[in-house]
C-alpha cells in the first residue's frame, strides 16, 4: 500500500509546475488530513506484530516525501528567482542619474594647487582688500606718484587715493604692519589692470608670497621658488633666474622655466626662446621694511608674485584669456 502511495506521489510530483502546486502536493500527502497522515492513523487497525514494520515503512515514506517536497520547492524557488532576475533587468546603458559632478574652474584648480604647494612648505595664507588705498598699492611698496614704474601697471581708479589693486603686493605691507617677523605667507587674490585683449584681462589672479626673518638670503629665494616650480611642473623642468626690476625688491629677479610645451626647443608659446616667464621675485627692498617699521639691518626677506592666468593658459594650452571669464559650459566641462 505504501508503495502505491509512493508511486502515486512520484507521478503527481512530475506535474508540479509552480509554488502553488508544490504547496498543494505537500498538504495532500503530509497535511493534517493528508494521505500519509491518514495511513498513519490506519496503523491502529493493524495487527500488533505487523504494526511496527508497517509503521517503519510509513515513516520512511513520510521522510521520503518530505525530502522530495523540499527538493522540489528548492528547485521551484530557484527557477522563480531566475525568472525574477530576468524580468527585473534594466537597460544598463542608459546614463546614470546623478553621475555628473560639476567642474572646477581651471583658475581655481591652478590657484588651489599653488596654495597647496606653498602651505606644504610651511607658508600660511593671508588676504587683503581688492579695492585698495593708493598708499598700500604703490607708496608703501616704494612706488611714489609720478614714478614711471606706475606705467608697468595701468590702474583702475575709484578716486584719487583709492584704486583697484594692481597686484597682490599690498598684502605684504598690510601684514607686515600688523605682525612681527618671522613671517612666511602667501596672499592669493584678484587684481585689476585696465587692459583687455587676447592675453590681458582687466581682472586676473595673482599669488603673492613673502618670507621674512633674520638671515634670509637670495639663495633661499632661489631654493624655495625652484622647489615650487618643480613641484608644480615636474622635477626635470629647468629653472633660470635673471635680473629684473621691481620697486619693492632689490635685488630683483625674473624667473623662467623651460617651456613645458616644446621642452626648450622653441615654440609659439615661448616665442621661440625655450623659456617661459613664470615668477617675479626679489629681496625685500629695505625701504619697504622701513615703511612698515622693520629694522632692515636686522631682517631680510624675499617676496615673489605670479599670475595664475598665465600658468593656466600654459598648462592647459588655452590661447585666449577671455575664455577663462566667459564661463561657457563647453569650455568648463573640459576641466
Amino acid at each position, binding site marked *: 500500500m505504501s508503495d502505491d502511495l509512493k508511486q502515486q506521489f512520484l507521478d503527481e510530483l512530475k506535474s508540479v509546475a509552480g509554488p502553488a502546486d508544490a504547496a498543494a502536493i505537500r498538504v495532500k500527502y503530509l497535511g493534517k488530513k493528508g494521505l500519509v497522515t491518514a495511513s498513519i492513523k490506519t496503523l491502529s487497525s493493524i495487527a500488533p506484530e505487523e504494526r511496527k514494520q508497517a509503521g517503519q515503512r510509513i515513516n520512511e515514506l513520510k521522510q521520503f516525501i518530505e525530502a522530495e517536497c523540499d527538493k522540489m520547492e528548492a528547485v521551484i524557488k530557484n527557477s522563480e528567482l531566475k525568472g525574477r532576475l530576468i524580468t527585473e533587468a534594466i537597460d544598463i546603458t542608459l546614463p546614470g542619474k*546623478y553621475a555628473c*559632478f*560639476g567642474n*572646477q574652474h581651471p*583658475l*581655481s584648480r591652478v590657484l588651489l594647487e599653488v*596654495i597647496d604647494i606653498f*602651505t606644504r612648505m*610651511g607658508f*600660511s*595664507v*593671508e*588676504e587683503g*582688500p*581688492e*579695492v*585698495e588705498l593708493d598708499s598700500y598699492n604703490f607708496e608703501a611698496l616704494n612706488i611714489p*606718484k*609720478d*614714478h*614711471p*614704474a606706475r*606705467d608697468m601697471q595701468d590702474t*583702475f*581708479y575709484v578716486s584719487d587715493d*583709492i584704486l*583697484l589693486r594692481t597686484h597682490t603686493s599690498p598684502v605684504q605691507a598690510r601684514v607686515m604692519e600688523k605682525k612681527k617677523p618671522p613671517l*612666511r605667507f602667501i596672499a592669493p587674490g*584678484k587684481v585689476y589692470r*585696465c587692459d583687455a585683449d587676447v592675453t590681458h*584681462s*582687466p*581682472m586676473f589672479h595673482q599669488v603673492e608670497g613673502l618670507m621674512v*626673518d633674520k638671515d*634670509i*638670503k*637670495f*639663495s*633661499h629665494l*632661489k*631654493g*624655495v621658488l625652484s622647489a615650487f616650480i618643480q613641484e608644480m611642473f615636474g622635477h626635470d623642468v629647468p629653472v*633660470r*633666474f*635673471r*635680473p*629684473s*626690476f621691481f*620697486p619693492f625688491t632689490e*635685488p630683483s629677479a*625674473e624667473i623662467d622655466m623651460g617651456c613645458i610645451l616644446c621642452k626648450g626647443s622653441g615654440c609659439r608659446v615661448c*616665442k621661440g626662446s625655450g623659456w617661459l616667464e613664470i615668477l617675479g621675485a626679489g*629681496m625685500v627692498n*629695505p625701504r619697504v621694511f622701513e615703511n612698515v617699521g622693520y629694522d632692515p639691518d636686522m631682517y*631680510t626677506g624675499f617676496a615673489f608674485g605670479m599670475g595664475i592666468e598665465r600658468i593656466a593658459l600654459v598648462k592647459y594650452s588655452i590661447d585666449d584669456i577671455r575664455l*577663462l571669464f566667459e*564661463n*561657457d*559650459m*563647453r569650455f568648463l566641462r573640459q576641466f
Partner: protein
Amino acid sequence: MRVSLDWIKDYVKIDATPEAIAEKLTMIGLEVEAVERIDDDVVFEVNVTPNRADCLSVIGIARELSVSYGLPLVFPDLKIVAETAPLDFNIEIAQPELCRRYAGRIVHNLKVGPSPDWMKKRLEKCGIRSINNVVDVTNYVLLEFGQPLHAFDLGTLKGGMIRVGTPQAITGESSMKFKTLDGTERDIPGDSLMIWDGERPVAIAGVMGGLNTEVTESTRDILIESACFEPTSVRRTSKALGLKSDASYRFERGTDIKALKKALERAALLTRELAGGSICGKIDIYPRQFHPAEINVRFDRVNKLLGLNLSPGTILNCLKGLGLDITEQQGSGFIAKIPPYRMDITMEADIIEEVARFYGYDKIPAELPEAIIGGTGLRDNVYATGIKRDIRQSFLKSGFTEAINLSFMGSNDLDLLSIPQDDARRRLVKIMNPLREEEAFMRTTILPSLLRNLTHNISHGNRDLRFFEISRVFEDSGSGPLPDEKERIAAIYFREKSGSLYKEEAADFYILKGVVEAMLSSIGAGDLSYVRSEEPFLHPGRSADVLIGGQKVGYIGALSPEVTDRLDIKAHKPSIIALEMDMASIISASKKNITFKHLPKYPFVERDTAIILDANIEAAAIIGHLKSYPSEMIEDITIFDVYQGKGIEEGKKSVAFNVRYRSREKTLTDAEVEKLHSSLVEYIKEKTAGQVRG
C-alpha cells in the same frame, strides 16, 4: 627698445655671436625679447625696465656689455674744432627746480636735406622714420646717448633768447593753447614746463616741440637744445596731455645730466658733417650742479644678502667698468660714488644687485631656509581656507560647475533685478576709468554675472545649467575710505522643461535647497531656518531667506517671471533657481569640533501617521509643533509625504509623518509606544486643527 648690434660695436668691440650676446644681455637683466636680422646687421628688441634709463641708449647697452665681457668702452672724438665766434644768444631758466641744466649750440648756414643712407638705415632699424638730416641727427644722438635733443629753426625764434618756465611762472596763465609739431592744438596746464623765446612758447619741455619753430626745408640756422628736465614734471605734463614721445619717455625715467654736453657736441658735429654750416660757441646754463651720491657698502652684507662667500676682490671686480668711483675702507667695505647715469642706485642693496648681476644669478646657490616651527599664520585663516574648500567641493559634487566672472557690473544690472533705490546693493563703488560702461561698477551681487553666463550658454545650446561662483562683492560702506568687501557664494540652476528619462524628479527649488542643506550639514552648520523672502527679483511663493541662528545669511528661490521675461532666453517659461549667501556667515556657523555621542543601546520603534489639515500650514510649522511635544522618547520626526488632490477636500492637504521613538533606559513595549504616539497625534491635531487621515 630696438638696438643695432653694428652700432653697439662702434662702442665695444665684441666678437661673440649675436645669440650669445642676446643671452648675456638677458642674464644681466636686459631681457632680449627678439633677435632680428636686417641686412648684415642684427637688431635686438631689448626690454628695458623703468629703473634703467641709462640703457635706453646704444652707449648704455654697450657699457653693460663692456662690463660683462671685460672689454673697454670706446667713445668717439667729440672735440669741436673751428668753432666760430661766440654766439649772441641768451638762455634763462626761470625754475631751476624743474630744469637743472639747459645747454644749446647754434649751427649757421646749414642746408636741410635728406640724410645719407647709413643714417637712414640705422634709424629705421631702431624704429625711427627718417625726416631730414637735421631732425635725424637729433634722433640719432637720442638713440646713441639716451639724451633727447631738439632743433629749433633759429630764424623763427624771437628776441634772441630762450626762457624755461611754466605758463604760471612766465605769464601767470593757468592754462594756454599751444600747437605742437604734429599740428595738434593742445590745452597746456599752467604748471607744465614750457620753452619760450622772447615772446611766446616754442616747445613743451621734454615732450614735443612747437610748430612755430619747426625745422623745415628752408631753415638755414638752428639752435640745438640739450637739457635736463625734472623727471616727475615731464611725466605729469605728458600724462596730462596724453602725449608721449621718445623724449618724454627718457626724461621721465631720468637722463644723464653730465652727458648732455657730450650729446650736444656729438649732434653739432654730426649736423655739420651731414648738413654743412658752421658751429657757434655754446651756452650752458647749469644752476643745479650734480653731486654724486655716496653709498657705503659692507662686504659681509653683500655675502649675507646673496647667500655667497665672495672675497672683497671678487666683489669689486664685479663692479669694474660700471663707472662707480670706489674708495675701499680697510677691507670691511667701500664707499661708492654713483655716476649721474645710474640714478637708480641709491642704497647698499642696489650695489649688491650690481654685484649679483655681474657675478651671475645662476652662480648663486639654491638652498632651502631652515624650517620655522609653529606656523606664522593665523589659525583662523587656515581654518577658513579649509571650510571654503569644503563648500566649493560640496557644490562641485552636487553637479554645479564653478564660474569665475569679472568683478564688474553696470548699473542696469540692478534694474534688471528690480533692486530698489534704497537697497544696500545700490551703494555702488564706481570706477573712474572703466573699459566699458557695463563694467563701470564693482559688483554688489554676483547674480547678474551668473545670469549672463546662463543666457550665453543657452544661446550656445548648452542646457541643464548649474553654476556657482565664490567671489567678493563691494559695497560703499559710507564709513572709512575703503568699501566693505564681502565674500559671497552664488549659484544658479536652470533646467529646460523637457521629458525626463526618469520618474520622481524633485521640483527645481528643492534640488538647490537640498544642495545648500547638504553643504551646510557637511561643515556642521546647524540651526537653519527659512522664511519667505522679500527679494524683489524672486518669485514670492517660491523663495526663501536662509537663516542660520535666526540671522539672514542669504536667499534661495525661483526668479520672478518678471525678471526671467527680461532675460534673453528663448525657452518657454524657464524656471531659474538662484541663491546667494554670505561666506563669512557660513564659515562662522560651521562647527570646528566634533564630539562623539554614544550609540543607542535599545531598539527604536517607528509609527507613521497622516493628518489632513489646512493647505496653508507649512511643513516647518508642522515639524515645529511635533517637536514642541514634551517627550524624551521622540528621537526623530520626518515628513515623508505631502498630498493634495483626489480624496482630499479643497484647501486641505494630507501630511504624512514618521516618528521614531527610543528610550535611553529600556526597550519600549508596543503598548508604551501606542500610548505615546496617540497622545502625540492628539496634540498635533489640536495644534493644527487637523484630522487623522483614515
